[in-house]
């Protein structure tokens, strides 16, 4: 079984109100100089057939019209990502 972590991000150029809301809240909390906040999603899973992961991501985990995704395979010995 291969362990994977999928990061799903809103595409550049599409308004991300969640990111903007986070960004606007930061100065009031004392964090200056933080910008371009974009909020996405992270899905972790175990797959018997990692070759099918890109298809799974395109069909369900992400909407390719509005989101980009990135698959990280996680080494079983540690949770540090290794690129496939």
């Amino acid at each position: 079984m291969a362990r994977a972590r999928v990061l799903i991000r809103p595409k550049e150029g599409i308004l991300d109100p969640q990111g903007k809301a986070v960004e606007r809240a930061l100065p009031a909390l004392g964090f200056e100089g933080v910008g371009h906040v974009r909020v996405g999603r992270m899905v972790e899973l175990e797959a018997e057939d990692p070759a099918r992961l890109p298809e799974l991501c395109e069909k369900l985990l992400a909407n390719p019209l509005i989101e980009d995704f990135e698959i990280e395979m996680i080494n079983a010995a540690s949770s540090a990502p290794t690129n496939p």
Partner: protein
Amino acid sequence: MRWGVLQFPGSCDERDALRACELAGGEARLVWHETRDLDDVDAVVVPGGFSYGDYLRAGAIARFSPAMEAVAEFAAAGGPVLGICNGFQVLCEAGLLPGALLVNEGMRFVCRQVELEVAAFSPPGGGQSSNIAGETLSIPAKHGEGRYWAPDETLDALEASGQVAFRYAPGQNPNGSAREIAGVRNAAGNVLGLMPHPEHAVDEMTGSTDGLRVFESVAGVLA
């Protein structure tokens, strides 16, 4: 005429949709998401609500149901399909309509009456007897992820081909939808989706019966 109104776990507006269908004319029944049976159905409604809790993305899971596979075949054969709110989201996720619905620009769930301008619109199937083009309808909007988006080239193409079916009247856009788009149809004209809820505007008791015009428009083709 027989209407089929889909029902997913988490749908909540299918009951009002059933009533609206019957007021527009004919009989209506629910189509449970696990069935593919649309044999006796003349028109399909994909209703509003929170199918699968809007988990992952609104409509993202419902689009893979057996009922939606049957709807895709029904639509490919030219059958009329009306998607309302979550139904619009499901149809976009299924690729039966172009574009996507994103979280409202103001990050707030919106629940208020909006004025819709019916754009260059032919009812599914092309009949003119119930053409509502040019009318202004007062319809409730009730959604958290209703901001219509598509790449600029797609929006240009939709406008050029008359596929924009409904726009929010000036000042009425509740969610930042691109080009004030409240609803679109597919190129063939038989699949229609809109974010506001015509099924909640069919009785004087709730202030507007304009929603009935949308259902009558779909029904009028098949009368």
